[in-house]
Every structure is written in C-alpha cells, then in structure tokens.
C-alpha cells in the first residue's frame, strides 16, 4: 500500500492499493462500503476537495464500482477511492453530511446507476425525468419507450414551505438571468430568498451514454456541445484522455497550436461572461463591448478551425489543420488590440461605485466551503486559492510558459470579477509567448485509424474557462470507451448556490448566479 494514501485517508482501515499507471491519478485504493465514510472523513479533515463521484458498471462481474475522486488545492495529487458494490443491491452510506457539496454528485450517480446512498440529505432525481424507468448507465439498460415529448419533465407548481412566511418564485427555466434552461425555485419572504432549489436537467442529453456508444473519434464533436463557450477545452480534455490512455505522442508544434487556440477560447469565454455578468447587474453597454471584441476571436478561430462556436479542431495526436503566418500575425494584432481595450473595460465597470456596492461582500465563498463543494476555476481563485490545472498538473506546454495565476482576496463576486479580468491579461501573455516560440514541424503524429485504447483508466484534467474539467475514461480494450465521465466545473460550482443564496436579496442571488459564469448545457450534459 502506498504510504501517501495512508497519510491521506488514515490508518486502520482496510485498503487494497490499485495500480497507478500515471494517467492522471496519483494514488488509488479500493476499500469496502463500510470503511468509505471514515476514509472520506479523514480526507475532508486533510482539506481535500471532492472532485466527483461516479461509477462504472462491471456487468460480467456482477459488480458496480463506485469512484470517489479527491483533489487537493495545495498539492498536485489526485486520489481515487474505489468501492465495489453488489450489482443486485448496491448500497452505501451517503457522505453528504461530510462533504455537503457531494449531494448533487450522489443524486446523479444514484439515478444513473441505481446506487442507493443511504441517509442522503436529498435523494430526489437530479437530471433525469421522474417517470424514466431503469438506470441508464448500467450496461443492461434497455430503454423500453422514449418518454413522450413535452411530458418528460412534468411541471409542478411548488407550494411555499411555510404558508405564513412567504411565497414561491419560480425563476426559470426561461428567465433573462439564468443564462439557459436553469430553473431555480426560490422560497421568498418579500425581497429576501429563504431557500433556493435549483432544478436541473432541462438540457440533459445523456452525453455519457452517447460516449459509450461511439468510437473515440466519433465522440469528439459531441464534446464541444457540452460547453459551447469553451469548446476547445473540451476537445482538449477528450483528446488528451485518449492520448494518455493509448500513449500517443503529440508533436510540439501541435501543442503550441493547442495552447494558442484554447487560450483564445478562454478569452472569448471571459469576454462574454464580462458582458453577461454586467447584464445581470443591469448594465447593458458592457455586454456589447465584450461582444465586439469576442467577435474578433471568433473570426480568428474560424480561420483555423472552420467553425465559430462548437469547434472540433483537435485530433488524437495533434490538431486538424496547421496554422499559417497570417493567423499568427492577426492573433498578435488582436493581442495588442485587446490590451488597448482592457483599460476602457475597467473604466466602464471596475471603478463604478454602483458596481462595487453591488458585488463587494456579496456571495462570499471561503476556502473550506469551496473544498466541501469542489469549487474550481475563477470562482475558487477569487477566494484566494491559487489552484489552476495549468500549474497544478501542467499539460501541453504550460510548464514552459511564464504566466501567473491571479487570485482574489475576499471570495466575493467582486474578487471573482477581478480574477477573470486578470486572467484575460494572463492569457494574452501566454498567447504572445507561444506565438514567439512556436516551432516548425509536424502537426500530427501517426495514430492508428481505428483507435483501440488499452485496458485502463485515465483521469485527465484541463483548466476550462470555468474551472477543472476532468474526463475520466475507462477502457476495456474496445473501440468504444467502456465508460466516459465528464466532471464539469459548472456542476460543482452551481452546487454551492443554494447555500450562498440563503437569506439574500433576490438581486444579490442573481449577482451570485452571474458571477459563477454558468453554462447550463455543460451542467446538464
């Protein structure tokens, strides 16, 4: 047994170490259902954060394998706790009292695999319609009949929890400030929110099941549809997971191209967020300022990828097309242009007294709460934790580049705003360096036409615009992935919202929602 694991999850418990094959998991062990709680309680006291909970159905063994994936904000290490459950009666005590943020992950895993998390704080369905029978991610799932369109998620009017104090406001699924088909049921007392309950699943497409029915290559375009604002990061995570599993080499030039394009993608996402956030606060003009500059990025990315939003540009072992000098020249021009524009962004918004009053001290997340809920990305860095996948698990060529991780001080909406604005500047720095040093050479290494990944598991993270995007890929040596789990940043980030929204004014809750930079199709998948 690895000593590091003992240190993290404690002595005296029965563990069987699992082989760690350097596919993004540093420590792995198997334990039994009864010991899981103690191990995770120890992990919680060590300050680890819960990246995700997921499962794999081993049909031929009659077992369900439950994974707890734990990350560490301070040290670059990822711990995997695996628990084998009996397929006929999978039961495990819930850990939602230890990691409150895990409730959503448990709800999702529960409804996908039919695992019963005992004593859970909330055992309702999360993403699936209430009238669906069976557990879709089990291998023997046969959809008998598609649920009729329009009735799949029956609309229920919620009653106020306490008749004397308040009413229920149904925010969404169509509402200007929920940025997509998110529905939040707000129990209100006048202008104050007593309780917020997000309802997910309006955009659910069961992408993880689709992945199991596609070859690795066929799945690639789907990844971009999950988070349409950072499509290239999803491309990147997927191709990297497959490359790690199969051991494909990526030529250096391709890595440089990947970094340039994905940083451009990050800037475009942040620019859109800048506008949308201010729109949530009632300022309209920044939205179009952000859009005008984002348009230039879309033009640039269109030159190399051929599309403007849902890119499918990266390939296993490289990228699809080479970039030409014109693209590099225009990108440098854009860098200079955006640098000259950023001061006006700050003039318009950052120093504005109304903006400061609306965002400072609103929606404060501290480090410990962030770890409970698995917050990552700019939302976490706003709380002063410098956890960024690009530094923690340097992938591609990020290790060779000189850039900083901006962190905020107070963990409020204002800090999250500043972090994102500084990240734009850092991304510009990265792009400049990458263009300066881009080598000549091949853009794609030789990979087999039909990809058969060797048996194994890979957990590969990418820093998307919204945080830690992790693809967990389980292969059994087939042409198709045996299980593909997308750990999406917005999912965990949104899970803290009910906690932050409690006892806040409705205007503040919408400021908080806006500051998370949510992309709902990414959450619903």
């Amino acid at each position, binding site marked *: 047994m690895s000593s590091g694991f003992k240190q993290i999850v404690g002595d005296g418990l029965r563990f069987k170490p699992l082989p760690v094959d350097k596919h993004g998991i540093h420590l792995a062990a198997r334990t039994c259902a009864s010991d899981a709680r103690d191990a995770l309680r120890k992990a919680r006291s060590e300050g680890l954060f819960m990246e995700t909970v997921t499962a794999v159905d081993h049909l031929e063994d009659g077992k369900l394998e439950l994974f707890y994936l734990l990350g560490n904000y301070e040290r670059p290490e990822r711990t995997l706790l695996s628990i084998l459950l009996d397929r006929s009666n999978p039961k495990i005590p819930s850990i939602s009292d230890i990691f409150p943020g895990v409730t959503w992950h448990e709800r999702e895993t529960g409804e996908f695999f039919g695992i019963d998390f005992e004593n859970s704080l909330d055992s309702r369905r999360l993403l699936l319609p209430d009238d669906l029978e069976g557990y879709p991610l089990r291998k023997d799932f046969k959809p008998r009949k598609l649920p009729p369109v329009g009735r799949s998620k029956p609309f229920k009017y919620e009653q106020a929890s306490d008749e004397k104090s308040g*009413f229920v*406001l149904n925010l969404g699924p169509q*509402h*200007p*400030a929920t940025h997509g088909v998110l529905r939040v049921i707000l129990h209100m007392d006048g*202008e104050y929110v007593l309780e917020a309950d997000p309802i997910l699943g309006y955009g659910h497409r069961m992408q993880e099941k689709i992945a199991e029915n596609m070859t690795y290559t066929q799945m690639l375009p789907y990844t971009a549809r999950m988070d349409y604002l950072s499509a290239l990061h999803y491309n990147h995570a997927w191709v990297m997971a497959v490359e790690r599993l199969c051991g494909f080499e990526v030529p250096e030039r391709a890595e440089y191209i990947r970094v340039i394009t994905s940083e451009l993608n990050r800037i475009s996402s942040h620019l859109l967020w800048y506008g949308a956030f*201010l*729109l*949530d*606060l*009632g*300022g*309209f*003009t920044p939205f*179009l*300022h952000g859009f*005008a500059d984002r348009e230039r990025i879309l033009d640039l990315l269109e030159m190399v990828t051929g599309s403007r939003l849902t890119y499918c540009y990266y390939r296993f072992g490289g990228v699809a097309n080479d970039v030409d000098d014109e693209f590099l020249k225009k990108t440098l021009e854009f860098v200079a242009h955006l640098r000259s524009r950023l001061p006006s962004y700050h003039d*318009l*918004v950052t120093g*504005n007294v*109304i*903006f400061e*009053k*609306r965002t400072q001290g609103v929606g404060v997340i501290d480090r410990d709460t962030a770890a409970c809920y698995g917050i990552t990305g700019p939302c976490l860095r706003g709380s002063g934790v410098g956890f960024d996948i690009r530094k923690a698990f340097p992938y591609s060529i990020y290790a060779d580049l000189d850039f900083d991780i901006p962190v905020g001080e107070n963990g409020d909406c204002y800090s999250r705003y500043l972090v994102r604005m500084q990240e734009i500047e850092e991304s510009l720095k990265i792009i400049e360096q990458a263009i300066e040093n881009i080598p000549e050479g091949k853009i794609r290494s030789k990979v087999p036409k039909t990809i058969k990944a060797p048996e194994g598991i890979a957990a590969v993270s990418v820093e998307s615009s919204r945080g830690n995007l992790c693809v967990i890929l389980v292969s059994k040596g087939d042409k198709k992935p045996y299980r593909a789990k997308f750990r999406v940043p917005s999912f965990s980030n949104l899970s803290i919202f009910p906690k932050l929204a409690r006892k806040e*004014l*409705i*205007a*503040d809750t*919408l400021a908080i929602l*806006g500051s998370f930079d949510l992309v709902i199709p990414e959450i619903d998948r």
Partner: protein
Amino acid sequence: MKDINLLHIVISLLGIMGMVSLNAVLVVWLERKTAGRMQFRHGPMEVGFHGILQTLADGIKLVSKQLVAPSHADTALFIMAPVVSLVPIFVAMMPIPFSATILAHETDTGLLLVIALGLLNTLGILLAGWGSDNKYGLLGGTRAVGQILAYKIPLLLTVLTIVILAGSFSLREIAMSQNGLWNAFMQPVAFLIYIVCIVLETNRSPFDMAEAESELVAGFHTEYSGMAFSMFFLAEYSYMFVAAALATVMFLGGWHGPILPAPIWFILKVYFLLFLMIWFRWTFPRVRIDQMLMMGWKVLLPISLINFLITAVVLAL
C-alpha cells in the same frame, strides 16, 4: 386665475397629445442612437433617415397586436393601469411654459399640480403589478411604491427651496425670476438632488428596480403586450419630458438664453437633460432596492432638509 375656456383646453390638450407622441418618437430614437453609439453599433438605420421613423413603425406594430390579459388577472385593474399611468401626463403638461407666452394653461399652483400628477405614475405601476397576478409584477409594483416614498420627500424639499427663492408656485414666474442667474448655480446641491430624483421618478436605470429586467423579467409590465405595453412606454418617455421640463424651469432658467428664440432654448435645455438621463441608463449598472431606499432616506433627505433650512435662513436674513 383667469376663467377657464373649454375650447382652449380641448385645443391645448390636442396639441399636448401631438407633443407627447412626437417627443416619444424623438426621445426613443435619440436613446437608441446614443445607445448604439456607446456600443459600437449604428442603432436603427432602416426606417426613414437614419432610422428616425423606427419608433413610429414599432408603434404601429404594437397597436396592431392583440391585448392579452392573463386568465387570473384582475382585468379591470389590468386594463386601467396603463391608462392611469399615461393620462395624467396630458394634464401635467398644461402648466409648463415653453416661453413667457407659450403655455397651455397658466395656474398659480402649476408646480404643485405637476408634482402631484407625477405621483399617479406610481399608482399606475402598482395597479399593473397587482392587477396582472404575477409575482414578478407584484414585486415590481411594490418596489415602485417603496421607491416613491424614499425620493418624493427630498424632491419636494428641493422644490420648496426653489419656491421660496422665487416666491411663487407658478412655473412661469419661477422661470421669469431666473432672468439673470440660473438657480442651478445658486442652488447646486438642490439641482444635483433634483437630477437624481428625476431619474428615480422616471424609473430609469440605474434606478429601474421596478422593471429590473435581469431580476424580475420585466417587473410591473411583465404581462403587458401590444398597445397596453406601449402606453407604459409612452408614459415613461413623457414623464421624462415633464421631469426634464420642470428641471429646466426650476434650475436652468426656463426659456432664457441669448440669440435663439425662447422656445428653442427651452427645448434644447430639456433635451440636454433627457440626453443626460439616456447617458446614465447606458453607463450604469442597476442599484439594489435596499441601497436605493438607504440613499433616499439617509442621504438625500437630510441633505435636502439642511439645504432648505440654510436657504430659508439666508433669505430671512
């Protein structure tokens, strides 16, 4: 007071209706063009010269639309609300002097009349929010009432400051009294408070909490469509005009000005203030409702009270 001639009133009301419509067309166009310029776009370009007739086209479209009322709505209140909002405007316009001679109806208490009628706008908003049986609407309506309580008192105090300076409630005489020095320079504090108050009065950004698009969908007019919606729109732009005209009379010397004829000066000053309000709207994010109430009760009220007392004492000495 001069005797009231019915024909005179009918003619001036007709004139005012034309004014209100023309003003809405112009201000909406100005607003959209200004917003466009601030946001790197053109704004309306298709209908008429640089889109000047766009508002007219929009108006025709809105009029031709069906008026839909929610099934649970209180239909009487629902229909009444936009009327309550819009109609007082026509009366409120009557005592406004465009020059020493051009005014629809002179009364000695013109200022009080206009301010009292301005209150009815909020009544319309509350009725709309209540009558449409919509929680967003209701929240918007209650916000508007909270807002009016917070700003009306400081507004009245600043108005009183001007009244004791001019010694009259008549708008014409207040304007006449500023032939030399404008009140804006004599009473800069009152002027600033009044500017804040007219943005509050017209429910415009940064104080558009009553409609608060990103919070309350559209606030009090969430359920309104077609002509009823456009009447709220018309009312908003007309109140802007009335509020700006009042500010011009009280602080910017009314129609006084060199070279150009008096009504032109008056209109120019009014439109300058309107432009200011448009500028605010497209620059600032929205204030939170509690912050606005705090500002009204704890900042504007004491300052306007002190300003009023100082003015009164100085005049008495």
